[in-house]
């Protein structure tokens, strides 16, 4: 399946792109992280400490165990700082 992967804030800066389209068979976000980390050293570094990373699947907050089949968009970002 094809998924759009989005990065925000320092994750976007460290990985170097705001979004990329990936062809994946990942069953969960955790599997997708493993695949993405193998793409480049920048990916691996940005995704190395997942306690500092939040995830949304199809624009809803999720976690590493969130299932991916059927998802179209996954976003990775730091803890939010609105308000």
């Amino acid at each position, binding site marked *: 399946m094809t998924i759009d992967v*989005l990065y*925000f*804030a*320092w994750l*976007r800066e460290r990985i170097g792109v705001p979004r990329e389209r990936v062809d994946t068979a990942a069953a969960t976000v955790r599997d997708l992280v493993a695949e993405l980390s193998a793409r480049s050293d920048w990916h691996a570094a940005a995704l190395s400490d997942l306690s500092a990373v939040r995830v*949304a699947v199809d*624009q*809803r*907050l999720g976690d590493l165990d969130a299932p991916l089949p059927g998802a179209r968009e996954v*976003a990775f*970002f*730091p*803890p*939010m*700082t*609105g*308000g």
Partner: protein
Amino acid sequence: MRVLVQPEPFDAAALLDGFGAGAGAVVTFTGLVRADDGLVALELEHYPGMTEAALTQHAQAAMDRFALTDALVVHRHGRIAAGEPIMMVATAAPHRRAAFDAADFLMDWLKSRAPFWKREIGPEGPRGWVAAKAEDEAALDRW
């Protein structure tokens, strides 16, 4: 109920004109960019689509939980100079307690559950990304 996500400054007086008509209490909160440590501006990144959806979801939760008659959330993104308003919430209810509590509730949720990320801009240029505060996350436990 109204949710606005925009880069432009907002006109609070115009937005509040007629807001809460018929209610007994209207509470508004406006957040300003503090000029801490010589900061000249904040730059806010957001997640187009999800940001609007999350603000709408939280505003609706406040409407339901506090039996509000109306709610308004305005949040800017992009570059915002020190001293300028960055966001505003307004709540309308039959009585003041619900309006105050709902505004407090909305602010706590927006701080750590709305997809915005702040970066500080000093006179020398961009500084780092603002780190999330543990106290902001802990504030959600109040609700």
